[in-house]
């Protein structure tokens, strides 16, 4: 901005007249125009969200309370009364929680290494994290099948080494579901963690050590608090995606690890019960909103997700 421009647009201080109105309205008009063009730019995304998300959700809500005899809350009452629904929700939360914790335990060192390494090595670590991200979930689940089954690579190797003499039940159960899901979720933990850790200045650690802190103390009191938003961001992403995950549990769960998403699918495919399926889906959505709301009360979501 040049001084000449400033001089022109600002009212002359030596003159005691109020600022010219024309300028102000022009500014307001300009601002409106900017808003309008912003809205125009957002329009495609807005239309898409409304048509593909909001409207279908309204349709789901309508379906969930509509039965042959008209309006009814039977589909919701069933969720609270029948143990199968309760058990399914409980198992879904249990597995999601377990996967989230494990992904922190496994993702933290990876993200830390990637953020402390330089050049080639840092890239290598990140590529190893992202590469599976680009592979179809279906393909990866089948790959686990090859590895984990009774005569699979893992069991065969352990037996050849004489560590076990009976194959371990690594899949067709909750264990298989957790392993497969964890693998899919790991990038969702590592990437936000890495983004946050990369921004932590190395100087602070050195300052802490120069003041006599032991490495672990430095890590605990300096590094960890600054990395915490990354842990939160990753945890929310992983937990929420887990809640609605379908393919891997379906393939590796052996048919008995039934999660909420599978309950929805079974309701539609086996029983043609669209209303019941809609109700389950909406309750899950509501629970996710509740979680977001709860977290937001302690730490604003924008801050966690780095938008500020």
């Amino acid at each position, binding site marked *: 901005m040049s001084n000449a421009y400033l001089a022109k647009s600002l009212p002359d201080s030596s003159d005691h007249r109020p600022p010219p109105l024309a300028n102000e309205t022009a500014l307001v008009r300009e601002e409106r125009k900017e808003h309008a063009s912003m809205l125009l730019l957002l329009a495609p995304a807005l239309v898409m969200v409304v048509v593909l998300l909001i409207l279908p959700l309204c349709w789901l809500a309508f379906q969930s309370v509509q039965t042959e005899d008209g309006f009814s809350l039977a589909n919701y009452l069933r969720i609270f009364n029948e143990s199968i629904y309760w058990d399914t929700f409980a198992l879904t939360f249990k597995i999601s929680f377990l996967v989230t914790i494990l992904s922190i335990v496994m993702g933290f060192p990876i993200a830390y290494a990637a953020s402390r390494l330089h050049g080639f090595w840092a890239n290598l670590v990140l590529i190893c994290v992202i590469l599976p991200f680009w592979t179809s979930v279906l393909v990866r689940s089948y790959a686990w099948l090859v590895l984990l089954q*009774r005569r699979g690579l893992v069991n065969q190797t352990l037996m050849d080494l004489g560590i076990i003499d009976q194959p371990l039940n690594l899949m067709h159960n909750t264990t298989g579901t957790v392993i497969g899901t964890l693998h899919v979720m790991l990038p969702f933990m590592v990437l936000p963690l890495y983004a946050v850790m990369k921004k932590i200045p190395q100087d602070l650690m050195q300052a802490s050590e120069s003041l006599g802190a032991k490495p672990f103390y430095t890590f605990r009191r300096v590094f960890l608090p600054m990395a915490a938003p990354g842990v939160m961001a990753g945890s929310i992403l992983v937990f929420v995606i887990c809640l609605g995950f379908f393919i891997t549990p379906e393939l590796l769960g052996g048919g008995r690890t039934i999660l909420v998403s599978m309950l929805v699918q079974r309701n539609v495919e*086996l029983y043609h019960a669209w209303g019941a399926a809609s109700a389950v889906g909406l309750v899950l959505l509501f629970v996710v909103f509740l979680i977001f709301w709860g977290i937001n009360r302690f730490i604003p979501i924008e801050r966690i997700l780095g938008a500020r």
Partner: protein
Amino acid sequence: MTHTRSTLFKLASLALLIGSTQARAQDITFVSQGGAYQEAQSKAILEPAAKKLGLTLKQDSSPKAYPIIKTQVESGKVTWDVVDLPTGDCIRGEAEGLFEKLDLALIPNAAQLPAALKDDYSVGYISYSTVLAYRTDAFKNDTAPKTWADFWDTKKYPGQRSLRNLPRPTLEIALLADGVPADKLYPMDVDRAFKKLEEIKPHIATWWTSGGQSAQLISDGEVDMIQAWNGRISAVQAAGAPVAFNYNQGVLETNSLCVLKNSPNKDAAMKFVNEAIDARLQAALPMIIDYGPLNPEAFKVGVIPAERAAKLPSSPENISRQALLSAQWWASADGVKAEERWLSFVQKK
């Protein structure tokens, strides 16, 4: 008065419309499930039948044809004529008024089928069976499980097991294992079946959901014995896996043919159904694919060699060793209730 006139006018134009479509061509649209199955029947049955009748045959395929049929009939825009459906869907459709009553004067071949394989609206077409298959590297010939009671006997026949993650025909299998004779399964004692299933539940490694999964489980040796469809096991055997099965205590399921209500080519459709269950054409199908023809005469026309017949679910000696699944029972209120019970059974520890 005006109301009647407009109704008359509509009826007249409808008649004109129907007349015009009928005049246009004697063509007929046949619908099946697609894939290798439809290709095989196209070659063995459908095209020869159309040629014989001088019809122009159009084909459509849909793995889930039922809702489409319902929409066509209810909206009055019927474009399909003959459909090949799981018999349960035929029975459901009969109750919902989706099919024409079969005109037996035009379908003389129906007389060759036993009464259990047909009714007023549908006639049996092909069959497949749910059998007990096992790994031959896990069990030597004389120690192999041969009955569902053996499948349940975990002491005498140790090993990993897998059942289908659906009550149909898993409940039938449980009752057979509990000693219910094959011809006394219906009306089904659902409580007894679930009780028997609770017994084997801790020993089931996997509850499979798709036919492909069942084939993979037994062919990779992930399980030692499994409930599976005969066609899947034959494919696994053809690929060289050490797997064997027999039709002892198999559960036979069928597909039937139906004609859509208000089909624009009703008479041609009936004649086409007659040809599709013709013994000679039916006999050609199992020479291409592992489905059993349902017209018993098909085994008497000299097309199917004895060793091939021995591998088919509907050959006279195999069919007598199996139980016939009752699509009627599964379509009944009790059947629907049993189906709903399944999910909580599988999930409960």
